[in-house]
């Protein structure tokens, strides 16, 4: 019945060129599940995959394209070893066994019946920003270097509830978590941490987990490195000792200059970076610009973020966008007048425990450059006198 009238040309006000077509024709109808505007398709995860094993590698959250603290589900970063398993939730179970009084098996429907808690938390890959160890600063956008971090509202069942149901043997100290991916990745996590605040994650920003983030269930280990948040979780074995899996010995350990290696470095350290202005952007003319960035710490809340526009000679406090939450991304903002001359922008964070984000030089002095993981050095952007922004040390 909709009479799609041949839009009679405007009689009185002939259609000037600034007339917008969408004002004069019915728009698109309703949809069951929305998608971003086609005009925003460049806001996407940048993929770094192994040519020989397409499911092995990472995809980065484009931090420089985003604002606020929430990462939309479609842009949450990925780190997989052999692709994303396409799991049928009806066939998936969680087995809790080992040093327990009664080994138990839970299916997905049952777990959805348990008490839950929601918490806004970041997940950061241990290898995030690892290019920072390189001798010369990598010339790529902020998200393509530091984008192995995302933040969501995770909802799930506290581990403590399931541990109580199975009954934990007194000599149990560790929980070995295993995923149902092609490689059944396994990690050892201290039982005390699992009891304290870990969740069986079931929801991500309100909807059920996305396949790339562990559907139908994953581990959530607040503030600790990404690999421990085992995706596609199918097994929890309690034991007196860690299993010493490949990803807690050969990988996710940090070689020191001495030749010894740090192991079981769980907590993601206090860190921040300016997302705008950042590499690849350009300041058209001298003017006021909004410096905006993200800060976080696995130890708790961010207490303070300072920003420098002269490479660290002087600093000013940035405003923190509330609510400032523990183990969660925090957005900081500070206006800056650029005078058209070369400048270097930096941010440094301090968390509620007093941990400070170190300068790169101090971090390298302490840890050498062969550690690969846990890079939380101060990130600096150089602005040249044409306003072009690039990554610098």
């Amino acid at each position, binding site marked *: 019945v909709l009479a799609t009238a041949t839009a009679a040309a405007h009689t009185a006000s002939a259609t000037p060129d600034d007339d917008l077509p969408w004002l004069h024709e019915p728009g698109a109808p309703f949809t069951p599940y929305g998608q971003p505007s086609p005009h925003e398709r460049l806001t996407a995860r940048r993929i770094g995959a192994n040519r020989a094993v397409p499911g092995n590698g990472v995809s980065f959250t484009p931090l420089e394209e985003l604002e606020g603290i929430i990462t939309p589900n479609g842009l949450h970063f990925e780190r997989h070893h052999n692709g994303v398993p396409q799991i049928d939730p009806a066939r998936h179970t969680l087995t809790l066994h080992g040093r327990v009084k009664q080994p138990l098996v839970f299916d997905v429907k049952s777990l959805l019946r348990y008490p839950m808690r929601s918490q806004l938390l970041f997940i950061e890959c241990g290898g995030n920003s690892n290019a920072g160890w390189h001798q010369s600063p990598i010339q790529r956008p902020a998200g393509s270097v530091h984008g192995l971090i995302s933040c969501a509202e995770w909802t799930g069942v506290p581990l403590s509830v399931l541990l109580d149901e199975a009954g934990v043997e007194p000599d149990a100290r560790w929980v070995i978590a295993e995923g149902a991916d092609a490689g059944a990745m396994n990690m050892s996590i201290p039982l005390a941490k699992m009891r304290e605040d870990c969740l069986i994650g079931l929801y991500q920003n309100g909807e059920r987990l996305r396949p790339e983030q562990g559907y139908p269930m994953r581990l959530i280990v607040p503030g600790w490195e990404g690999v421990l948040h085992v995706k596609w979780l199918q097994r929890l074995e309690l034991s007196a000792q860690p299993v010493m899996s490949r990803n807690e010995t050969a990988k996710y350990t940090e070689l020191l200059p001495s030749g010894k290696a740090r192991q079981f470095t769980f907590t993601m350290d206090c860190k921040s970076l300016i997302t705008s202005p950042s590499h690849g952007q350009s300041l058209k003319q001298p003017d006021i610009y909004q410096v905006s960035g993200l800060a976080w710490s696995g130890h708790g809340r961010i207490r303070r973020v300072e920003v420098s526009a002269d490479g660290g000679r002087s600093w*000013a406090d940035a405003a923190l966008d509330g609510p400032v939450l523990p183990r969660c991304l925090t957005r900081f903002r500070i206006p800056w007048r650029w005078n058209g001359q070369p400048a270097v922008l930096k941010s440094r964070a301090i968390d509620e425990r007093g941990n400070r984000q170190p300068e790169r030089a101090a971090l390298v002095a302490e840890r050498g450059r062969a550690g690969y993981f846990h890079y939380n050095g101060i990130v600096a952007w150089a602005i040249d006198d044409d306003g072009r922004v690039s990554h610098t040390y």
Partner: protein
Amino acid sequence: APSLTPQENAPHLGRPADPQVLARQRLNVFPDGSGLPTGRGTVAEGGALYARHCAACHGRDARGGSAEELAGAVRPLNDPDADRTIGSYWPHATTLFDFIRRAKPMGAPGTLSADEVYALCAWLLHANGVVPADAVMDAQSLPAVRMPNRDGFIRIEAD
């Protein structure tokens, strides 16, 4: 750090608006008639336009179609199933011009001329018994129309 947290924290990137463009694009019509364009329309002209552009959804005599009832209110406003038509409920006649010009017809909104909108206003007001059959609506007569339910509203959060 003098250059950080400068005196002013916002840039000034608004471009001065071109008065011609402003005038051409402005659709708002206020109860005092401000925003009404020059032009005129009669009840008869409105009737023909209504039949062509509107009757398909709103019904031949502005009721009984698939879309909103526009005229022919029977049940009063204090009836649980009150009829809320233009004549029985709308407080301002200028709202008709503001809405029809920007939103109608549904298939090609904003494509009616000022004369056509004035005519549709005339016919709809007449169909609601608010103006006589020979009424002519224009920038002076439309805002002067006194709607039956002009005083039917209680402002809750604005004075």
